[in-house]
């Protein structure tokens, strides 16, 4: 039995956790929710004894009567992986790229029990089988880059449970995964808790995930636990204002723009677009296989229309997006933007300026050395920089709700939500006719996400811009789009009004997506 008692942590004198108490009973799932920076991950790291350098912890982390905070790193290392396991948010980078998955799982057993390599490999095999990676398809000798994100997360889970720990801490385990994979991973975690009787601390900003999984939920704000209780009770009757605010934000539906699709010629026409990739050869002279990433796709969008594009990872949405943006060549068929053909690498600036894009990770798409003023003004190179460009930058920032003094600052000085607003300001500045949002709100906290969605809805009304919204999060798609396209294995398998597709999906792919969508208690889909 593990528990946290009156835990406080300060980093460099600045308090980050304040008097946190939390019990993690065996065989139970405890959810820990809150906005980013509220102290969720810091609580996990304190339990693991992996606080950053310069952090000072007071209080008690109790494991069977022993205070873990009092242990030195050597002793704590003996407990990590053996009594307490942990999995992290980013499965793509959580595994050592140079080690086979078998070795990475076996390492835990070799480390803690001095097991021989063979014996450890045998156990590793069992653990990988347990997490749904059977030996026939997933031999121990595979390297992480040969696996998908969901499969890598399974390996990370196998690593964490290799030595059957008493406690498993999962820090945003499914945030980076698509909705069907998320459902599978959550099923796996639930099964592990039921079968092995371990305690699970589930940290997430996604209230729907917690609501459909956890037995108890603790809500954090500013380094404190503001409310804690049984999941059903807490969702039904939240006591603390912050819990109510979080729930409201998660259930938030932005006011829908009233005058959607404008008449006239379509802003985007995709006609029988096709793109395939050569697969690596299995043997030196084997015939090259082809993967049809985008297979005979046709659709069109009216000015001012808001269209969602959904599908599991690998269904071809990213390739299609890249083709629309003129980043990937169209091999068959054609794509017309405002009546003019999109040709990868040879798009005149004036045409380019009619479509802009906002990506999932706003930080990665900004040059860290540029001021925000310069970043937002960047698209002007397509149209020529107007005299009053600085006023326009200020106006664009104002539109997304940022103060004018943001112009002089650099990107690292902003939070994730503010960065996403800056990315939207950058997309808006040259008044494009179409904005492509590629998982643009997936990584944001519920409250920030609600603000950004409201902003998008408002801008669509005021500027008549068409949105193409690519996402795996159906609740977001539902709240902001009029029409939705469902993609599966390179093809569009369903195209219809959002409400109809999500309430009564016709294609198998759409039904899978809707079924996998986590729902909050008391939420009718």
């Amino acid at each position, binding site marked *: 039995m593990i528990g946290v008692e009156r835990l406080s942590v300060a980093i460099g004198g600045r308090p980050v956790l304040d008097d946190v108490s939390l019990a993690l009973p065996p065989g139970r799932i405890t959810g820990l929710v809150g906005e980013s920076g509220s102290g969720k991950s810091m609580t996990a790291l304190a339990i693991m004894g992996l606080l950053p350098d310069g952090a000072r912890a007071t209080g008690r982390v109790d494991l069977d009567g022993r205070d873990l905070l009092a242990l030195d790193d050597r002793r704590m290392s003996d407990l*990590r992986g053996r009594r307490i396991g942990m999995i*992290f948010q980013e499965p793509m980078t959580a595994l050592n790229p140079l080690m086979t998955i078998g070795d990475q799982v076996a390492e835990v057993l070799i480390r803690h029990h001095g097991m021989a390599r063979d014996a450890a490999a045998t156990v590793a095999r069992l653990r990988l089988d347990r997490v749904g990676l059977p030996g026939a398809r997933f031999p121990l000798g595979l*390297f992480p880059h040969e696996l998908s994100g969901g499969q890598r997360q399974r390996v990370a889970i196998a690593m964490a449970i290799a030595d059957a720990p008493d406690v498993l801490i999962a820090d945003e385990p499914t945030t980076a995964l698509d909705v069907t994979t998320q459902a599978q991973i959550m099923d796996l975690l639930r099964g592990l808790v039921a079968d092995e009787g371990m305690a699970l601390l589930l940290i997430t900003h996604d209230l729907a995930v917690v609501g459909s999984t956890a037995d108890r939920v603790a809500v954090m704000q500013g380094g404190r636990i503001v409310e804690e209780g049984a999941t059903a009770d807490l969702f039904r009757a939240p006591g603390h204002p912050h819990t109510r605010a979080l729930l409201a934000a998660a259930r938030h539906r932005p006011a829908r723009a009233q005058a959607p699709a404008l008449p006239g010629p379509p802003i985007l026409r995709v006609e029988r677009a096709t793109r395939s990739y050569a697969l690596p050869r299995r043997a030196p002279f084997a015939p090259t296989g082809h993967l049809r990433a985008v297979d005979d796709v046709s659709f069109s969008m009216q000015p001012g229309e808001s269209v969602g594009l959904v599908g599991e990872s690998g269904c071809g949405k990213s390739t299609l997006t890249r083709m629309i943006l003129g980043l990937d060549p169209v091999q068959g068929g054609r794509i017309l933007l405002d009546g003019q053909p999109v040709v990868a690498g040879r798009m005149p600036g004036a045409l380019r300026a009619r479509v802009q894009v906002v990506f999932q990770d706003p930080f990665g798409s900004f040059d860290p050395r540029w001021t925000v003023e310069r970043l937002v003004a960047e698209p002007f190179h397509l149209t020529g920089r107007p005299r009053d460009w600085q006023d326009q930058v200020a106006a664009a920032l104002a539109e997304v709700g940022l103060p004018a003094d943001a112009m002089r600052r650099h990107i690292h000085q902003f939070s994730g939500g503010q960065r996403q607003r800056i990315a939207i300001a950058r997309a808006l500045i040259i008044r494009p006719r179409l904005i492509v949002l590629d998982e643009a709100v997936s990584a944001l906290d519920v409250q920030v996400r609600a603000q950004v969605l409201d902003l998008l809805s408002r801008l669509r009304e005021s500027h008549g811009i068409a949105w193409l919204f690519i996402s795996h999060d159906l609740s977001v798609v539902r709240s902001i789009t009029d029409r939705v396209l469902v993609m599966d294995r390179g093809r569009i398998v369903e195209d219809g009004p959002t409400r109809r597709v999500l309430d009564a999906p016709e294609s198998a792919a759409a039904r899978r997506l809707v079924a996998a969508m986590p729902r909050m208690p008391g939420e009718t889909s």
Partner: protein
Amino acid sequence: MTLAVSLLVASAVIFAVVDLVPGDPASFMLGTGARPDTLAALRAEMGLNLPWPVRYARWLGGVLTGDLGTSLAYRTPVAGMIVERLQVSLPLALAALALAAAVAFPAGLYAASRGGRAGDAAVMAGTQVGVAIPNFWFAMLLVLVFAVKLRWLPAGGFPGWDQPLAAIRSLALPAVALALPQAAILARVLRSALIETLGQDYVRSARAKGLTRAQALRRHALRNAMIPVLTILGMQFSFLLAGAIIIENVFYLPGLGRLIFQAITQRDLVVVQSSVLVMVAAVILVTFVVDLAYALVDPRLRGAR
């Protein structure tokens, strides 16, 4: 295949450059007072009046059959001269590199494990000095201390490999002098590569599995930090093979660097041409070996090949 193409291109470039360099080897050999008909006779004998495609083809044909031509100044086969010089330069380069790595790895690992603390700062300051010291000055310092004062090792010259012990003794100080700046550079590269990999998610995963900081550094970070280190090692080896000329001069060693330098001052174009080609071949070979090593370290690069 690409190896052969790079070598062919290199040979053409070398030939073109050497051919374009002003200075006629025949007139250099006979001095300024030579009679025109003697000069013409010598030029004919040396094949200098043939058109350039013929000269290039002859040279290339010779190279392919292992004949690197005959030195204009010494009238001996160039291949033999290069082999003789490589007997000094190759062991010297290898010894210097091994020494550099032997110092740099522990230093880099230690500095990275103390990242940002006093131990790290001390190692970094040390390497700063190591990079900054001119190596001929350091070489002279070594001579003063170990050869002149302590009389442990010879101050210069090379006795040949028929006296193995004496040969090793005479290469010891030059190897140390060459190794110092390389060790400093390598240690810095290793440290920064390690510190970068230590911040990676998989190192955090390794810690969560129960590995101590030192275990995570050795088992997970080190191998991931090897790619930049291998790149630097390859470049250093190429540099040491011919770039040791200053140190060779300080210690009077008959190495490849001095051979090329002398050949240039004597307009001994055949020697210059062929030894530069050998150098280029060595660099291409090292690059190839480094590429193989990348694939050995990183499974992601294996499929791409």
